[in-house]
C-alpha cells in the first residue's frame, strides 16, 4: 500500500497539550489588543472614560506590597510552571501498530481481544487481560488446569499481528467443577495457581481492561 513518493506514516498521537493553553493565550492576546483599541478610542476623543493601560501603569508606578500579592505571585509561578511543562511535553502516543504502517489499535483493545479469545476455551469461565509494553498477562478462572496451554496458544496467535512482539503469560486459577463458576469465584474458593507463557506481539505502556 505504501507509495514511494510520500513520507512514512507517523504513530497516531494525541494533540500536544500546548494546543489547549495556546488557545487560551490567543484569547488573551486578543483581549490585550481590545484594551489597546479601547484606550486609543479614548485618546482620539471619540468617547470619554479611563484609559486602562494608562491607569495600570500609574498604579504600578505607586506600587507597594499588599497581602493579596502573595496569592497572585504564587499563582503566577504555578500557572507558569504548568505552561512551561506543557510546552516541553512530547505528544502522547495513543495506539500501537498492527500488521503494517497504516493499521493501529489501542493496548486496551488488544486486552479485550485476548480476553475474548481466552473465553472461547470450554473450561474457562472468566478471563481478564493486562497488556503492558512487552507483555500480555491473561488471568483465567477455569475448571481445568490444562487450559492454560491452550489459552496461551490461542492468545499468542490472536495477538501475533502486533508490530512489536508481546510475551503472553497466562495465570490460572482452578476452581472445582461443582462450583457454579458462571457466578464467579470468591476468595474462599479452593484454587491452585499455574502459569504458562508464549510469544506474540508488542505494546508501549500498561493498559488494563477487564473483559
Amino acid at each position: 500500500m505504501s507509495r514511494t513518493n510520500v513520507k512514512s506514516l507517523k504513530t497516531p498521537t494525541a494533540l500536544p497539550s500546548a494546543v489547549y493553553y495556546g488557545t487560551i493565550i490567543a484569547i488573551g492576546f486578543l483581549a490585550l489588543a481590545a484594551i489597546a483599541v479601547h484606550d486609543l478610542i479614548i485618546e482620539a476623543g471619540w468617547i470619554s472614560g479611563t484609559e486602562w493601560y494608562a491607569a495600570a501603569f500609574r498604579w504600578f508606578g505607586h506600587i507597594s506590597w499588599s497581602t493579596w500579592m502573595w496569592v497572585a505571585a504564587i499563582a503566577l509561578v504555578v500557572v507558569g510552571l504548568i505552561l512551561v511543562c506543557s510546552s516541553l511535553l512530547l505528544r502522547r502516543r495513543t495506539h500501537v501498530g498492527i500488521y503494517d504502517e497504516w493499521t493501529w489499535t489501542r493496548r486496551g483493545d488488544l486486552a479485550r481481544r485476548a480476553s475474548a479469545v481466552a473465553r472461547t476455551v470450554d473450561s474457562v469461565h472468566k478471563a481478564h487481560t493486562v497488556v503492558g509494553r512487552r507483555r500480555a498477562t491473561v488471568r483465567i478462572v477455569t475448571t481445568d488446569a490444562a487450559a492454560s496451554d491452550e489459552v496461551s496458544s490461542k492468545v499468542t496467535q490472536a495477538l501475533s499481528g502486533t508490530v512489536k512482539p508481546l510475551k503472553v503469560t497466562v495465570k490460572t486459577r482452578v476452581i472445582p467443577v461443582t462450583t457454579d463458576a458462571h457466578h464467579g469465584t470468591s476468595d474462599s474458593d479452593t484454587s491452585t495457581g499455574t502459569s504458562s507463557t508464549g510469544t506474540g506481539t508488542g505494546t508501549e505502556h500498561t493498559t488494563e481492561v477487564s473483559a
Partner: protein
Amino acid sequence: MNHGPAAFNRLIVFIVGAAMIVVGAAAIGWKSNASWIHDRMQRLDLNWFRTAPDSSWWVWALVGVAVIGVVLGIWLLAVNVRPQRARTLSLPGSNAGGKLTLAPNKVADAIADEIAAAPEITSAKARALDDRKRELVQVTVVAAPEVSYDDIIARLREAAENLRVALPDESLRPRFLVHLDGARDSASRVR
C-alpha cells in the same frame, strides 16, 4: 498539527509561562528580602511607569499592542482551533480552463460507509486530516472483541486498495484505528 505551527505554539506557551514564573518569583523574592532581587527592584524607575502614559510615543505603543495582539491572537487561534485541517484535493484534469477539486472529507465518508457495511464491523467513522505533513483519511473502526484482527484487517485492505485505485496520483493515504467494543458488564482502566 504540523511541526512548524506546533513548534511556534509551544514557543509562545513557553515564553508566556516563563514570563509568569519570572514575575511571580520576582514578587516573592521582593517580599522575601532576597538580596539579588531587591537590588534589581531598587534600580527599577517607578517614576517612568507614572509618566509613560503622558509621553508622545504612548499612542504608538497602544497601536503596536493592538496590532501585535490581533495578529498573534488570530494566528494562534487559526492554528489551534482546527490543527489538522486537510486541504482540498486538486484532481488530474485541472487546467487553465477550470479546476477539478474534491473535498477529502467526502472521500473519508465514502470509505467509512464501505467499511461499516461489512458484517464484521460494528461501526466506522472517518475524517480527512493533515497529521505532521501526512495527508490522511483516518478511519476509526469499531468491532466486537470476538472478531479476529485478521478478519478486520482483510476488510480494511480492501478499502485501502479501493482508495488507491480511486486516487492513484494523490498523496492521500488511509490510516485505520481498530477499536474493539468493551464488554457491557466490565470495567476498564488505564494505568
